[in-house]
């Protein structure tokens, strides 16, 4: 422990009060009690600068361009604008490291990562950043390469930063959730690991994100935030254990069940039958999950599982928030060929966008600019009524290719019928 001159932090000190765990208390532990003098100093500088931000209500970090040898991204460079005042944390870069799908760790592996980070960095980290990376916060110019070399040797790689394929995210998944309809782990790794070059060497119009949720509850916010959202679903009938259902009705009473389950089905596809059995109009089930969220013991997804793929979700910049929209209503993901097909789709989408997207334009914004039909034709996907909420309502449309399009539709329907 170093005998250092501590920057006063009266405003930050206030954040040590209260019942929620305090990050400031953690900072002070590193500053005051860590055996490495380097860490004491770095965190002292960081706290000084943060206090300065609290006092002036302004941020003082600037970006830059650094990366590890062989890569072009994966590190968020931070240089202090007030490094003269707080020289100890003048360089304070973040390494973005890809976690496992579902963010699983053993304590042994975590300790190993903590040991490496303590050796080279500030001793501060986040599990995880908003994109989904492990954020190792606070390496200087001399140390980030060493830290990367060390953890890369035992299995960890950098994620994306900048205009590139970003680190993917997936939910807790089939490892611990009865709602899961797919192997989120395999999907996640097949997708993102097919694009490691595009992760590490930013050369796309802007960011491209894969997110995988095992069911329509979409715990990963995939529809709202991913350019390529994979949501597990099923296309046969959901499964009802009528004994467990009746036990639920007996326990809660019919009124509760009507108010909280039957009447809350968004497509009115549930009814209470004789003996309080659950009656399901399966052709109108839209997989809205509510009934199985309320009664997981009695209702579960069907057996013919697969995924729905949506594209183009993103946050505000530049044209406003966009939800993803349906691109593939249902896709089986069981055989190696199925997995090849989903990777090929992603390749088509990324290639088309790399070719046609404007600088700083996400996939969803490009679709907004060129129209979904041009996008579908560009990536070779046929139109499907599941892609729309309703057909167009303005008559300004040229329909001189109608007969041909209708014939294609009937041909596709015939092929589907023949295939089944």
């Amino acid at each position: 422990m170093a005998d250092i001159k501590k920057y006063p932090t009266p405003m930050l000190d206030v954040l040590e009060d209260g019942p929620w765990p305090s990050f400031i208390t953690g900072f002070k532990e590193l500053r005051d009690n860590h055996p490495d003098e380097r860490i004491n100093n770095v965190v002292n500088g960081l706290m000084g600068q943060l206090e300065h931000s609290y006092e002036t209500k302004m941020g003082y970090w600037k970006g830059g361009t650094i990366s590890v040898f062989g890569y072009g991204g994966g590190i968020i460079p931070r240089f202090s604008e007030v490094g003269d005042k707080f020289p100890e944390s003048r360089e304070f870069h973040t390494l973005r490291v890809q976690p496992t799908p579902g963010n699983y760790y053993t304590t042994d592996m975590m300790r190993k990562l903590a040991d490496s980070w303590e050796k080279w960095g500030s001793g501060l980290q986040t599990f995880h950043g908003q994109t989904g990376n492990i954020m190792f916060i606070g390496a200087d110019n001399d140390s980030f390469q060493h830290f990367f070399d060390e953890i890369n040797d035992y299995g960890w790689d950098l994620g994306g930063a900048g205009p590139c394929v970003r680190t993917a995210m997936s939910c807790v998944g089939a490892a611990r959730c009865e709602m899961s309809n797919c192997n989120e782990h395999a999907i996640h790794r097949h997708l993102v690991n097919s694009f490691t070059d595009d992760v590490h060497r930013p050369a796309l119009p802007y960011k491209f994100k894969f997110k995988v949720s095992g069911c329509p509850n979409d715990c990963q916010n995939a529809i709202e935030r991913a350019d390529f959202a994979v949501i597990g679903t099923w296309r046969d009938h959901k499964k009802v254990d009528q004994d467990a259902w009746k036990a639920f009705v007996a326990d809660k009473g019919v009124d509760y069940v009507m108010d909280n389950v039957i009447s809350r089905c968004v497509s009115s596809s549930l009814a209470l039958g004789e003996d309080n059995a659950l009656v399901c109009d399966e052709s109108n089930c839209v997989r809205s999950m509510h009934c199985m969220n309320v009664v997981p013991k009695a209702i579960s997804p069907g057996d013919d599982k697969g995924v729905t793929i949506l594209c183009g979700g993103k946050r505000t910049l530049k044209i406003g928030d966009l939800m993803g929209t349906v691109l593939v209503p249902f896709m089986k993901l069981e055989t190696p060929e199925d997995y090849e097909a989903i990777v090929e789709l992603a390749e088509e989408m990324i290639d088309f966008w790399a070719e046609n997207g404007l600088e700083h334009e996400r996939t969803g914004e490009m679709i907004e600019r060129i129209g979904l039909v041009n996008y579908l034709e560009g990536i070779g996907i046929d139109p499907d009524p599941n892609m729309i909420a309703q057909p167009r309502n303005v008559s300004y449309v040229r329909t001189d290719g109608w007969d041909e399009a209708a014939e294609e539709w009937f041909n596709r329907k015939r092929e589907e019928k023949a295939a089944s």
Partner: protein
Amino acid sequence: MAKPEMREPIESGCPDGFQYMHPTMRRNFGLWDFHEDTQPGVMVHVAKSGDKVWTVKAGTQRILDVFTLRDLLDLADEFADGYIRFTIRSNIEFYTDTEAKVQPLVDALKEKGYAVGGTRNSVASISHTQGWLHCDIPGTDASGVVKSMMDELYDEFTNWNMPNRVHITTSCCQINCGGQGDIAINVQHTKPPKIDHSLVGNVCERPSVVARCPVAAIRPAMVDGQPSLEVDEKKCICCGACYPPCPPMQINDHEFTQLAVWIGGNHSNARGKPTFQRLVAAGIPNNPPRWPEATAIVKKILDCYKEGARDWERINEWVERIGWPRFFEVTGLPFTKYHIDNWRGARANLNSSTHIRF
């Protein structure tokens, strides 16, 4: 001088998670039957094989120091089975297949000051960004805002008091890495950028900056004989999109950078389709170190939601049922011209019917 020998990276990408997964979870992968919530923060999942795994969830400060991290790992080894994961909202989850370990783990976590909860119909931990601690464009802090609010919402995290789950997010700029939330506390700038014309020509790629503006308010200009950019301040919507590619266009301000509260963002397809959050309050001071004004509004909205919503209704569903006029009435928040959308597609946000509650 010889170049230093550089190590070639191993482009291994995303690592395999199965190697770090609890053996009971690995063994029952895809074979789970149902789960039960036994107490706030604790779930038991039962596999078709009859195997069980208990999850204990605890809130963290998200920006973890290695001491706290090792403390959590020691708890995972001493009281659980050495397998953990982190949720999307930075909660830690401990796993064990031994029921007898659950309560001692919960007690030990509480004893050490961690918050056990965040499951089912609670206020989950606030998902947040980097803020003044590490971002290059932040209008406010993130960790501090979250700490301040979670101190006030501690009992809502550790209990099941809400009609349904509540996800809160924060964002330190209008680009919004924080994402959609039932309640979102986001930066809202209220004045155009202040431009340092002596720097723009050298620092900024001017055509990119012009292209970045959502309302085409930026144009190239010569200012004081130097190539720079100027902003049509009547058109400017003060979003700050020009600031990241052109730092001399400073959007952050100690007075005019404020906070806004949005509600009703819901990413789930449960019951209704996913929804975007809606502006409900702006003009909230950015007031470190505790942001009391923003917290008071969040708490008021939560109180009204708790009072008025039916079981299972998320905040967006509650407001949809009672109507927006009633929302402003019960929360006491002012309704202003700024709530009326004028962005593209705005007509879809107007009431084109006589559906009015009196």
